[in-house]
């Protein structure tokens, strides 16, 4: 992954905006931002962001590559779409945030311990394995993400909800051993592999 980063740095030199336009989902929209700030003000998690979206867009234009890609900010996005709805220039801000997060992750620059990144990874590995989310495995992995003790405590805190879900048939208590998965798991894996290939080719990642 570190190599990917070096090759991108060499390829784009100081033009981070160009790099974002080429490699980040919906990145071509970044230059359309007119810095009105309505996105930052509309974000329900706004106060928790180190750099609100408008600032990230400005940082991209200013070429502050490391700072942007290593930022925790875009990982804060919960996809509420408030910013997209209100943006006077109709920038797909939510998608750009996820695109930036994904790009940073692929370059290996995303903050390692960021909880959103870790959850996203656990979720993806879980669903990609069998084509269907295994809820029990997902929650167990998520709870025990920060170690055994923290996991037990979290599990105890959530036990009422868990029992409720089991009673209504929403959670299979034997899910860890008997997970259904999808019919054509091999086909799904093949499809995902192909999708990765296409994506890498499009974005200029060396396979």
């Amino acid at each position, binding site marked *: 992954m570190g190599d990917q980063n070096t090759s991108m740095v060499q390829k784009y030199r100081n033009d981070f905006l160009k790099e974002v336009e080429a490699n980040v989902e919906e990145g071509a929209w970044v230059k359309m931002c*007119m*810095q*009105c*700030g*309505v996105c*930052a*003000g*509309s974000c329900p998690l*706004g*106060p928790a962001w180190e*750099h*609100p979206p*408008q*600032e990230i867009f400005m940082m991209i234009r200013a070429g502050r590559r490391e700072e942007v890609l290593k930022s925790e900010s875009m990982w804060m996005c919960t996809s509420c779409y408030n910013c997209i*709805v*209100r943006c*006077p*220039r*109709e920038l797909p801000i939510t998608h750009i945030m996820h695109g930036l997060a994904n790009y940073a992750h692929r370059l290996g620059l995303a903050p390692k311990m960021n909880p959103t990144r870790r959850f996203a990874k656990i979720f993806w590995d879980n669903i990609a394995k069998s084509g269907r989310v295994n809820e029990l495995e997902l929650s167990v992995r998520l709870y025990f993400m920060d170690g055994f003790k923290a996991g037990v405590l979290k599990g105890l805190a959530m036990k009422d909800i868990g029992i409720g879900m089991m009673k209504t048939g929403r959670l299979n208590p034997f899910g860890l051993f008997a997970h259904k998965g999808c019919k054509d798991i091999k086909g799904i894996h093949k499809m995902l592999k192909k999708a990765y290939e296409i994506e890498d080719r499009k974005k200029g990642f060396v396979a």
Partner: protein
Amino acid sequence: MADVVATNETIVVVGGGISGMTAAVEAAETGKDVILLERSPSLGGRVNQLYRYFPKLCHPTCGMEINLRRLRGNPRIRVLTLAEVQKIEGKAGDYKVSVTVHPRYVNENCTACGACAGPVTTEIPNPFNYNLNKMKAVYLPSAMAYPQRYCIDPSLIGTPEAEKAKAACPHDAIDLGMQAQKLTLTAGAVVWATGWRPYDAGKIQPYGYDRFANVITSVEFERLADPRGPTKGRILRPSDGKEAKDIAFIQCAGSRDRNHLKHCSRICCMASLKQTNYVREKYGDDGKSTIYYIDIRAIDRFEDFYQKVRADGTVRFIKSKVANITEDRESGDVVLHGVDTEGYHRYDARHDLCVLAVGMQPGADIRAVADVKVDASGFIEVASATDGIFGAGCATNALDVNRAVQSATASTLRAIQVVNRMAKVEGQ
């Protein structure tokens, strides 16, 4: 009204605001016959509803007075009020303009003495004050109204109130049996000057214009500041009638926004800068104005005006498009939320009153009556050389008064050219 004579050398001007009046006067003063049509009961349009103009801060009565004098003194201009254009057919040099003239129920005998309104108690919203207050249903549209003639609201017809008004008139000026009239006017050229209307602020959901009493529009603020307005020139909050001393102005309310109006309405920055002067005029150093903006668009010579307002210690500028507004239920204060672009500071700013600098959109859709090209915002595109219908003033673009008048004069010249061509053809 059957005495309206028109030929194919007549110029019909649609809209009796500052642009239409200018067009009519300019054409008539070159010797052309003009019919000026106005939808409402009196001339003057939105300029009449302003407290002051920018940049010289004089009152609109002044400019209107001059135009009215030129208009009244010119026998070539025929003014029809309450007249609405239904259809324009034909080609340059030969148009048929179908017009409906709505009944005023008051005839030419009226001397505007006001005796008819005396016994009337029914009240209707006052459109001259953007419905901020009510007026009697028998009314003079405004102090400056031309023609200076009373008007009876159609809702009153058939009620005993109407009879009372009729009985009170000493000049036999009230005719309750008046009917709508349909006219077909011949015209060589048409100048379309139907002006603008403010963007519906209620559509900007996060600003809560339809939910919070103390969020008002810039045009309403003009009426509050005007001594002839509903508050006699005192800036009072709609919620509790208290004096508003700390006022927020939000720029681009509806303009430059792909969810609302795509275009920049051009006048709103200057309008808000001008309105900070109203606050200073009323309260001196005790007033506070805060302008929330994306960027200030004070073009050309207006830069000086902007710099002067900048230098005013009571006016603050915050570079930020406000994200949303909430209301403090107890006090009625408005709280503006957003992030300042200069430094990315988050603010929750409390103000007495919030004024939305609303954008301009075309006042009427010309496509309903004639086949004319309009742009994405509905403004009339420049006509081709063979056409005889010309947009003027704010029907063609978002313009300030000065530029609207220039536009009207330019369109009049083109209309005169068409009419002159017709005169030549006939002379041969």
